């Protein structure tokens, strides 16, 4: 039972409390660049999550053998090998997605979320917890990508996953498909997240005060 609870807390930690993109500000590059459509965001999220889980497992298995002086380089090499595999798989099975993500598929290799997960988590923890950490961070990243891309696709082209939402009379706000729209959307989402965090903190503080009074 407690193990099950731990899994859920870890998952919740990655998606909400410690979201890698919206709170730790990692992996902003892909979050800004490929979020022009929801399908791109889902593809990128899934690919990154898969690489993240595999790299966490591998690095956690090898953690006792990697000398700490060259650990970052070892991690980078392991990660880039996995990304190459992901790139080839994507090229042969999801060619449309591969072409629309373009160079951002190989650039998964330099996504800070993966390196950060490897360095601060997988190199210190057991295999299973590392794999779960990879899953939760990957899902958190995917959620952030989906949030940004829904707004950008809806306003920028008036569609969701290619289906028209507002009808033919809708004139899309092209700004949202441009890089400026990416910064703007992510900024507004980050503001909402920050607002929610502050509200939660305030609630906890006032609760604490009430308890003191009692």
């Amino acid at each position, binding site marked *: 039972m407690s193990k099950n609870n731990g899994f859920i807390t870890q998952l919740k930690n990655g998606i909400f409390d410690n979201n890698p993109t919206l709170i730790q*500000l*990692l*992996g*902003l*590059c892909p979050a*800004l*660049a490929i979020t022009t459509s929801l399908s791109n965001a889902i593809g990128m999220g899934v690919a990154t999550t898969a690489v993240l889980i595999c790299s966490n497992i591998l690095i956690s298995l090898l953690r006792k053998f990697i000398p700490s002086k060259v650990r*970052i*380089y070892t991690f*980078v*090499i392991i990660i*880039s*090998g996995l*990304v*190459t595999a992901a*790139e*080839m798989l994507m090229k042969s099975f999801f060619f449309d997605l591969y072409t629309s993500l373009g*160079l951002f598929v*190989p*650039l998964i*290799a*330099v996504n*800070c979320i993966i*390196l950060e997960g490897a360095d601060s988590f997988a190199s210190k923890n057991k295999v299973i917890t590392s794999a779960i950490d990879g899953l939760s961070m990957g899902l958190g990243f995917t959620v952030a990508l989906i949030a940004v891309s829904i707004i950008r696709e809806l306003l920028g082209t008036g569609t969701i996953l290619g289906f028209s939402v507002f009808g033919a009379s809708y004139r899309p706000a092209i*700004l949202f498909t*441009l*890089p*400026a*729209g*990416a*910064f*703007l959307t*992510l*900024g*507004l989402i*980050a*503001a*909402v997240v*920050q*607002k929610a965090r*502050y509200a939660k903190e305030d609630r906890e503080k006032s609760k604490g005060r009430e308890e003191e009074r009692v």
Partner: protein
Amino acid sequence: MISLSFSQTLMLMFSAIIVENLIFSKLYGASPFIKVSETPITALGMGIVTSVAITLSSALTWIVYHLILEPLGLEHLKTMAFILVIVALVQLLEMLLRRFTPSLYSSLRTYTPFIATNCAVLGCALLNIQNNYNFIRSVCYGFAASIGFTLAIVIFAGVRARIEFATPPRAFKEFPLTLIAAALLAMAFSGFSGIKL
């Protein structure tokens, strides 16, 4: 080998600096751009180090790809090979910085590991291969793109210095406001996209 005239190369470079600015039109290297909060002078130092890394890695990765990977038929391993080259190069640069400019090194020390994981460095190397540039053009493109990167982070460091004194609503403090300022700057840069060269 040089199928490109001087003026064409200049045009390519101008468009890489302004029109297709690495950060504002391609969004490569947006992470360090948003996260590194520094004075314009330190931003310039960081920009120069990154520029050297991008220019040299453009040259080295071209050599690795066309003289090693292509003859052996190992093109699919380019991501891995390029990352190795970049990591080694950044490590070398770090050693040189520590040896010759200790003051700059100490102010940039926390950021130097990020240069290797900067999308812009690997991104430029991969773009050169994707666009099938020759050696001279790759180096020119890498150099110009990195000047664009430096320009963007120096301008943004200035903007950030002004934001420090602003008193936004609490929800917008720091990160969200930074992103929105970046959005405004990106809009300004998108004004250049009408220029076709």
